[in-house]
């Protein structure tokens, strides 16, 4: 178990990369630190590793306070974004390097390197230098080096971001399976919300050195704690429309919607994922509860379209699945209605989640 309490890291010049942060990561958990660049996620990972000393607060791993422990004695292994493979050593020597430092006899450490390499499908490459490997192979060697040292914790800094898009999907599946098999507590940093949703058991969404929300991928996706998380999670940004509660009804972008009981009058933000609305090209039966407008932009997403609707008051985006073969995309300029699916829209007041409608 990793537990962080009151962790603060302030760099010279007064930049607070981490701001009094508390977090608990369970044994065997695959945990993601997600956030935009500059949010402090990498600094947090490096602080867990011991590469950065916190300004205040504590880090403990497996119940032992390691705040003042040097990185080499924390029993953690880190995979860096650039893999950090030593160019003058072959694959075996790279994988076995941490074992060599721990004075494991040569024959034993080479056997362990070979065994780890075969598990990561690197067996034929043991005598090669990193310069002779593809990006995906280099990434697996870096993983193998971490795995071979049998650490208590894996720390991955953007492990997939240096791979090209197709390889990244493969490597993602591979990484998830590997973590399941090894069941080693793993913390990884990513700025890619899709990667975090796909890999992690739990996600901590970070912004400006603080954790905004911690939760499982479905929790973070369906119940974003604030508008920052709401707009950050999801492959298409959530529609966030300013509105107001007045006399038991919600007024948003020219539409009046019913409100659940107990919502007091006042300003609100109405959030609706583009995937959770249907586009109708003719007036729908629930037209009173729909956003009517003109198609402004149509973006092709392959098996669907992202349609931007101009209602006059606001822009509303809707993901429209492709129709039967032969049917085309909605035409820009055509009138259309965005019909929210019931129970999928979110209401925020003072940046806190208030209700689903």
């Amino acid at each position, binding site marked *: 178990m990793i537990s962080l309490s009151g962790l603060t890291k302030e760099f010279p010049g007064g930049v607070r990369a981490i701001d009094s942060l508390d977090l608990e990561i369970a044994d065997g958990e695959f945990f993601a630190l997600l956030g935009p660049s500059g949010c402090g996620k990498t600094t947090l990972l490096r602080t867990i590793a*011991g590469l950065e000393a916190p300004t205040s607060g504590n880090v403990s791993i497996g119940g032992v306070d390691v705040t003042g422990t040097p*990185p080499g004695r*924390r029993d953690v292994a880190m995979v860096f974004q*650039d893999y950090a493979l030593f160019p003058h050593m072959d694959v075996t020597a790279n994988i076995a*390097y941490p074992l060599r*430092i*721990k004075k494991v006899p040569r024959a034993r450490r080479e056997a362990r390197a070979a065994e780890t390499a075969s598990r990561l499908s690197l067996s034929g490459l043991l005598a090669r230098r990193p310069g002779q490997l593809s990006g995906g192979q280099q990434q697996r060697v870096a993983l193998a080096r971490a795995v071979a040292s049998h650490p208590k914790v894996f720390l991955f800094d953007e492990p997939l971001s240096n791979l090209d898009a197709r390889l990244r999907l493969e490597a993602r599946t591979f990484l998830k399976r590997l973590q399941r098999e090894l069941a080693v507590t793993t913390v990884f940093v990513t700025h890619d919300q899709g990667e975090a949703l796909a890999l992690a058991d739990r996600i901590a969404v970070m912004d400006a050195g603080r954790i905004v929300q911690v939760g499982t991928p479905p929790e973070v996706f369906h119940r974003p704690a604030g508008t920052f998380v709401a707009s950050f999670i999801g492959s298409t940004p959530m529609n966030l429309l300013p509105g107001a509660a007045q006399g038991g009804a919600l007024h948003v972008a020219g539409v009046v919607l019913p409100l659940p009981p107990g919502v007091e009058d006042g300003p609100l933000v109405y959030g609706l994922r583009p995937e959770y609305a249907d586009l109708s090209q003719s007036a729908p039966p629930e037209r009173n509860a729909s956003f009517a407008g003109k198609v402004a932009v149509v973006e092709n997403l392959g098996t669907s379209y992202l349609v931007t609707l101009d209602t006059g008051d606001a822009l509303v985006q809707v993901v429209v699945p492709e129709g039967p073969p032969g049917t085309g995309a909605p035409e820009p300029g055509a009138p259309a209605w965005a019909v929210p699916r019931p129970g999928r829209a979110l209401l925020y007041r003072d940046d806190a989640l208030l209700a689903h409608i």
Partner: protein
Amino acid sequence: MSPADPAGLGRARAAGFVLPALVLIGVFLVFPALWTIYLGLTDYRLTGLAAADPQVVGLGNYTSALEDERFRNSLWLTVQYVLGSAVVGQAVLGFALAWVLRNRPGPVKRVVEGLVLLAWILPSSVVAFLWIALLDRDAGTLNALLHTPGFAWLLDHPMPSIIVFNVWRGTAFSMMLYGAALENVPPSHLETARLAGASTFQQLRDVVLPRIKGHVLTNLLLISLWTFNDFTSFQITAGGPEGRSEILPVYIYNVALSGGQLGFGAAISFLVLLVNLVFAFVYLRLLRGRREAVSP
């Protein structure tokens, strides 16, 4: 325009442009070198009969040099000087400074670098005077600091004195070269080693040195060559006392100009030139090897 003649000048005009430079090189570099070789084969002296009518003595100067105790002593002192002040002193201290300063924030780094650089760029007569003032027996700063009045550093320990002096004088180059080389070591590599539990020594051995091997060789060759030819110490000890700090360049000066044996001095100069050529040859081979390694 053919590929062999991209400027389209033609052979004659191209030669015309190069000629002035070639003449300068010929007059001031090639001719004196050849003249030195010739002088080395004669008994030419600054004064006396042999000055008016020098005789060719063949390899006589060389054989007498190799038999000369003073020459062999000077050669041995030069080896000490190069190993002590360049290979061990400047290279090790320069690397240590570069390593310690690599992540240091602003002012500390700038001040240390500034001081080290200052020692390097000051004129040699100025630094020689500074060191005489430092080491002087009666009014020297060092004796005042150590409360050892009357201790004659330059008389009792002339070689250590000029070795320390040359380390102080020349470390800046190694520090700057290694400083630039260390920028090539990716931080993630050092951090990977740290996470594996590697000590500083292991980090240097496994991560840093393999990365900067080329820089180390270049640096060692250059500072060895410069130290081998260095004459600044003459301004401090003039080779004395009794030749105990008489490294080769000082020896040549003392023999040829103070002693007037121009022919003999020229022969020694030629030997020094040969050593320089060996250094230069190794250096060029090394550079070529590195270039081929970079672009196969």
